[in-house]
């Protein structure tokens, strides 16, 4: 019996034959996540149904020194759930139970495979919702949201996943199970929930997640304004925020993104070089007043047309084009890269000008979609993979945009994560000392680098032992592929 066959048998003994996928063709289903230009087939896939299954599977990996990667719905856009070719892919999609709904304390406890939107659907009759709303919320899982610290269109006002998780049950990479944080506020000790959320699967696997839910606002008002340029739309957003209003959302799309959205889902957007969607929510008297102010500011910034959503149906139509924008770009280009840079909001006009220049230099089109309130840009670099060299040029252009964001004081990722895709850009943002310091946290959780290894950080590192004693030389180190830290 080969090592792989033995591993398959052990996993089957833990979660039954239906919980293990080992057929080579079936494994192809799992070879990538939402970032499809990276593909790796894992050794095998396991589908645990309980936290105990997860714990025992991780224990096996730990005992055998086998890397593992956790995956939720596989919608991530940075290759965070890209399998390891010698590793086990642990798919949490079967752990879909909402374990507890506690309205008096505004908490919901879920398993990691629960779909984001399900949480809101569950508590909506009580007047509540779960605030983080990534565009993939119809399918993405809460466990994935925790790993990636997912945001969404409304996080400017309501924060990211990390602001809405109060406790976690986690299987550590050595197979231990621990409870981090608490349902109640300010648990004593280090904020390991804060450290874990957004760690992209490198610190372990969350098997139970306590979420904070938020009261639905009394009123929501949404407008869609057309502008002669993205600069004007960006100016309107800056003026709205300078006036002391924090909108629930402020989204800009440029002409190429509008064209794509029209082709795909026909939202009936006005013909313009830029559109801005602004949503305000809160107490009615306040929102009404602020909404008038927003309309006035849009007009002052040369808006050519303003539409106000009269009802939920029209609001949904405004959002339909925006939420479908990434996929819609497929209608106007055979291939595209999605980027996720962040800049200080006030640098928006400058960054748009420079992206235009870069786009011209490389002879490639760039569609821009952005969360304008928080400076999170999603430039979509369009290319044709069948044209020799174009994919490489597109990748180069996408990388240059990220470097530009860092130079302007921003970040290489606002919500998609570093994952596999952007790990080589980390040194643009962080020094060697910064990255080594982050590695200390990694070493405390995962000294043998088994949990989603080779992601997030540019150079694989091993952890030195804290205690004196004989040190085994890791094969990777021996081969000169990693340095001991």
């Amino acid at each position, binding site marked *: 019996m080969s090592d792989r066959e033995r591993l398959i048998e052990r996993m089957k003994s833990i979660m039954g034959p239906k919980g293990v996928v080992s057929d080579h063709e079936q494994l192809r289903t799992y070879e990538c996540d939402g970032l499809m230009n990276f593909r790796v087939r894992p050794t095998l896939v396991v589908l645990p149904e309980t936290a105990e299954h997860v714990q025992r599977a991780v224990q096996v990996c730990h005992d055998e020194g086998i890397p593992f990667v956790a995956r939720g719905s596989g919608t991530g856009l940075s290759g965070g759930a890209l399998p390891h070719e010698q590793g086990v892919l642990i798919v949490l999609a079967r752990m879909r139970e909402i374990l507890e709904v506690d309205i008096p304390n505004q908490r919901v406890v879920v398993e990691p495979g629960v779909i984001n939107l399900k949480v809101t659907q569950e508590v909506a009759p009580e007047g509540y919702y779960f605030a983080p709303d990534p565009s993939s919320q119809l399918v993405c899982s809460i466990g994935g949201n925790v790993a990636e610290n997912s945001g969404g269109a409304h996080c400017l006002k309501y924060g990211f996943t990390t602001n809405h998780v109060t406790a976690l049950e986690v299987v550590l990479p050595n197979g231990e199970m621990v409870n981090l944080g608490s349902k109640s506020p*300010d648990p004593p000790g280090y904020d390991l929930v804060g*450290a874990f959320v957004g760690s992209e699967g490198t610190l372990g696997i969350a098997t139970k997640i306590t979420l904070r839910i938020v009261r639905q*606002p009394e009123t929501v008002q949404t407008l869609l304004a057309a502008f002669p340029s993205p600069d004007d739309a960006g100016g309107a957003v800056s003026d709205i*925020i300078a006036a*002391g209003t924090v909108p629930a959302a402020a989204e800009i799309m440029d002409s190429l993104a509008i064209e794509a959205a029209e082709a795909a889902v026909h939202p009936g957007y006005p013909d313009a070089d830029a559109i801005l969607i602004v949503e305000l929510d809160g107490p009615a008297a306040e929102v009404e*007043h602020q909404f008038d102010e927003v309309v006035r500011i849009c007009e002052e910034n040369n808006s050519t047309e303003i539409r106000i959503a009269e009802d939920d149906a029209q609001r949904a139509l405004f959002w339909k084009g925006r939420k479908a924008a990434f996929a819609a770009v497929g209608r106007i280009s055979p291939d595209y890269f999605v980027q996720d840079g962040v800049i*200080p909001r006030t640098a928006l006009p400058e960054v748009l000008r420079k992206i235009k220049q870069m786009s011209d230099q490389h002879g490639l089109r760039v569609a821009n979609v952005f969360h304008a309130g928080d400076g999170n840009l999603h430039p979509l670099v369009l290319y044709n993979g069948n044209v020799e060299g174009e994919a490489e040029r597109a990748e180069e252009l996408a990388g240059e945009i990220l470097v530009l964001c860092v130079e302007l*004081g*921003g970040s290489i990722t606002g919500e998609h994560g570093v994952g596999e895709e952007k790990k080589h850009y980390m040194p643009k943002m962080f020094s060697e000392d910064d990255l080594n*310091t982050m590695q200390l946290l990694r070493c405390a959780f995962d000294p043998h680098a088994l949990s989603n290894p080779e992601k997030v950080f540019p150079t694989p590192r091993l952890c030195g032992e804290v205690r004196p004693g004989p040190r085994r030389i890791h094969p990777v180190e021996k081969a000169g592929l990693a340095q001991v830290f």
Partner: protein
Amino acid sequence: MSVSEVVQVSVEDLKNIVGEEHAREAKESDAVDGVTPSFVVEPGTVEEASAVMKLAHEKGLRVTPRGSGTKIGWGNPPSEVDLVVSTARLNKILEHAAGDLVARVEAGVKLEDLQKELSGANQMLALDPPEASATVGGIVAANASGPRRLRYGTVRDLLIGITVVLPNGTVAKAGGKVVKNVAGYDLGKLFTGSLGTLGLIVETTWRLHPVAAASRTVVVEVESPAAAGATVQSLMHSTLVPTMIEVNRPGSDGGGTVAVLIEGIGPGVMAQAVSALEITRHHGTPRVLEGREVETFWDDALKSPWDGDGVGLKVNALPAELPNVLELVSDAAGRNGVTSRVTGHAATGVTLVGLSGGDEEGQAATVQELRDIVGSGEGSVVVVQGSPELKRKVDAWGPVGDALTLMRRVKGRFDPGGLMNPGRFVGGI
């Protein structure tokens, strides 16, 4: 290590790094919970701070970081302290990007000074811990908060970037100066509330908020803990967006108040205040405060429930448990011959308890009884002020559950020599 054993370091070594004026032998007033250090040093730059930490590391000096010292009594008494590293001179506001609602400041900047600077642009850092002279670095290290946390959250929700000096002198940063950023581990959150046990915080970057144009205060007189709880619940589940919901229970008789601060724009706050009256009138007697009584009321309501030499507890429970917590505090205190006074950020579940009178036995027994009940569920009871004698009888933090081993591993990686604030944190860390 006693003072005599640290002979290999002299105050001159420290002066060589920070200059003649900024290093000295420690005085009794520099004591940390009864433990007197040998030296106090005030680095003026991040480079100096790094050099000081490197020296301490090489010589094995135990270090306590200090801002304004407002929370120097937090946590357990340290096992040893050789060197206090003060951030008093790291007091520069480095950047206020008003258009981006972001500020970058050194750790020794006092919150009140920062707020003054930000108010020029009609902005604020939405943190309001009770200690007005606290530094931002100290606020991060202690995870200090105040009543505004209901609307704006706590340090973990507002801190977007951090620079720290590790115990070996390494300078490292995490986060950045944009609100939305998921690149790398969030070390800012790891250092938040770590009470100086992982390293020295030297620089912080914050998300800011606009200052509201108008406000209204609604105060509800309530007759019992149950009525206080019902009032708070009715507000929590309404569509109002209050900045604060504070409970105040001056004595151990049944009565007290639940006060609501509503902020926003003129017409909005009045409408919300009217709704608050309507919502709460089933549970107590509400009214909207007018004119001068607003300030007088809040000055009194936000006063710390403990005196300079009293015992201060922070009870962290689920908000719906408020009536039980209120009953439990007065029962436990009464049984142990201690007087209690209670305020709290009611809708968040944080209750502040001042104990006075009685002896340390009685105080310790009160803490233990609260822990037996609150701590056995989802909550915790932290002693934030108490004599070293009290803290020898009862741990300042209480149990932290099964994550303690992992916390020790984190500590072991960041501070393998155990030099940072030894013994002050949870589980003897």
